[in-house]
C-alpha cells in the first residue's frame, strides 16, 4: 500500500451496533482516522454512494461491511464495494451468518411485510397498501427497494476475505484489525478474527464442567435461580458455549447469562445449528423414546435457539441465490 490505507465502512441490514464497535475504540479511533483515509462511512462521515462509484476499482484497501443482505439494494451496494475494494471484511454476526435478521427466513417476505404493515394491533390501515405499493408510489418518488426472498450472509453474494465475528465484535478486536491494516497488512483470505477453539475453552466456569452432564429436563431462564459460578449446562440450562467460537471475552457468561452463539461455529463445523443439536443430544439422559420426546419438549423453540444467529447461513440454505 502506498500512503495511508483507504478504508470504507458500510452497513446493510444491520443495527448500527457494528458501527458502535468502531466508536467504542474510543481514543484509538482518532488514531485510525489520522492514519487512514476513510472514504465512505455513512454512520459518521458525510459521503454519498456516488462518491464510492467515483472511486477506481480496487482503490479501497479494506471495506468493512456489516449487516445481513435483506434488500435488493444491499446486493448492488456490496457488489459495488467488492469491485472497489482489494479486501472485503464481513464485519459482525449479520454479515458473517445473517444474524438475528436471518430468523426472518422462517417466514416468507410476504408474511414479514403483512405482519408489520397490516396485522400489527396498532395499525390504522390493516387493509392498507404495503410499502412500495399503492396509489401514491408514483414516478415522482424514489422507488423503494424490495425484499429478497431470503436473508443471506455476505459470502453468498460476494467473495469475502476475512470475518470479524460477534454481535457486536469486541472493540479490542476492531482495534487489532485496524492496527494490522494500518501496518500495511491486509488480512489473508479466510482470516477469522476470533479464537480457533470454542468458548468453553476460555470460559471462566470451565473448571466446574463435570466429566459427564446428563439432563433429564432442560430448565428455562424463568424457571430457576442458578449458581453464578457453575457451568450452565451442569445446571440444566442450555448454553451454546461448547459450539461457539471463543473471542467474546465470555461477556454474557460474565453477566451470569448463558451463551447464545453470536460468534458462530468453529472452522470445522459447517452449520452452527447442527453443532448445537449434537451438543444437546449428547447431554440428554438415557431413557426410552417417550423420555426423549419429553426432554425435547422441554426445549422451547429449538430451531430458533440453535439458529439464533445463523439461520441464513445454515447449509439448508446453500442453494439460495439473491
Amino acid at each position, binding site marked *: 500500500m502506498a500512503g495511508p490505507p483507504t478504508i470504507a465502512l458500510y452497513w446493510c441490514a444491520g443495527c448500527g451496533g457494528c458501527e458502535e464497535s468502531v466508536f467504542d475504540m474510543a481514543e484509538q479511533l482518532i488514531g485510525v482516522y489520522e492514519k487512514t483515509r476513510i472514504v465512505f462511512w455513512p454512520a459518521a462521515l458525510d459521503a454519498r454512494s456516488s462518491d464510492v462509484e467515483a472511486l477506481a476499482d480496487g482503490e479501497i484497501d479494506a471495506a468493512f461491511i456489516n449487516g445481513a443482505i435483506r434488500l435488493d439494494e444491499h446486493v448492488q451496494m456490496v457488489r459495488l464495494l467488492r469491485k472497489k475494494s482489494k479486501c472485503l471484511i464481513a464485519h459482525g454476526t449479520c454479515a458473517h451468518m445473517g444474524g438475528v435478521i436471518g430468523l426472518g427466513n422462517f417466514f416468507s417476505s410476504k408474511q414479514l411485510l403483512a405482519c408489520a404493515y397490516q396485522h400489527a394491533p396498532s395499525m390504522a390501515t390493516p387493509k392498507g397498501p404495503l410499502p412500495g405499493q399503492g396509489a401514491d408510489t408514483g414516478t415522482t418518488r424514489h422507488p423503494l427497494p424490495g425484499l429478497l426472498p431470503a436473508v443471506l450472509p455476505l459470502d453468498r453474494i460476494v467473495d469475502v476475505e476475512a470475518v470479524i465475528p460477534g454481535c457486536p465484535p469486541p472493540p479490542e478486536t476492531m482495534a487489532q484489525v485496524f492496527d494490522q491494516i494500518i501496518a500495511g497488512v491486509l488480512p489473508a483470505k479466510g482470516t477469522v478474527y476470533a479464537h480457533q477453539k470454542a468458548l468453553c475453552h476460555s470460559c471462566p466456569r470451565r473448571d466446574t464442567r463435570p466429566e459427564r452432564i446428563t439432563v433429564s429436563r432442560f430448565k428455562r431462564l424463568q424457571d430457576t435461580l442458578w449458581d453464578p459460578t457453575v457451568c450452565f449446562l451442569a445446571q440444566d440450562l442450555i448454553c451454546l458455549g461448547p459450539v461457539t467460537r471463543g473471542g467474546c471475552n465470555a461477556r454474557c457468561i460474565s453477566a451470569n447469562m448463558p451463551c447464545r452463539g453470536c460468534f458462530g461455529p468453529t472452522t470445522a463445523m459447517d*452449520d452452527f445449528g447442527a*453443532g448445537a*443439536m449434537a451438543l444437546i443430544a*449428547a447431554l440428554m439422559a438415557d431413557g426410552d423414546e417417550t423420555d426423549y420426546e419429553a426432554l*425435547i419438549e422441554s426445549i422451547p423453540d429449538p430451531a430458533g435457539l440453535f439458529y439464533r444467529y445463523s439461520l441464513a447461513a445454515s447449509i*439448508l440454505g446453500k442453494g439460495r441465490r439473491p
Partner: protein
Amino acid sequence: MKSLDLKIIALLCHWCAYDSADAAGRSRQDVPPQIREVHVRCSGQVDPAMVLKAFAAGADGVMVLGCKPGDCHYRTGNHQALKRMRLLQQVMAATPIHPQRLRLDWVSAGEGDRYARLAQEMVSQVKALGPVDAKGGM
C-alpha cells in the same frame, strides 16, 4: 418431477444395517432404485450435519438404520442416534424440510426382507411428500 428422480440416502451401520442390505441382495429382494446406501461405522456416527448436508446436496429423504435397541455393537450408538435424530426432526419441523423425510429405524444383519420393506416404505413416504423444494430449505 418423476418419483424415480427422488433420491434417498440410506446411512447404514457397519454391523447390522449394511449387512441387512447385503442380505436383501442375496435373497434377491426388491429394493427401490431411489435408495442409495452409504456405509457408516455406527448409527451413532451419524451427526445432524451429515443429514442436513445430504438434504442440501439434493436428497429428498434420509434413512438412518442401526442395530436393534440393545444390540448395538458399540453398546449405546443407536441410542445416541435416536436422541440426535429426534432432536433434529423437531428442528426440521420449523423448516421446509418435512421431519418425515428423515427416518431412523432398526434392522438386524440377517433381515434382508425387513431392509427391503423399510426401503419401500421410505420411498412411498417420500413420494407422498414429493421432491424437496429446489431452492433448498432455510
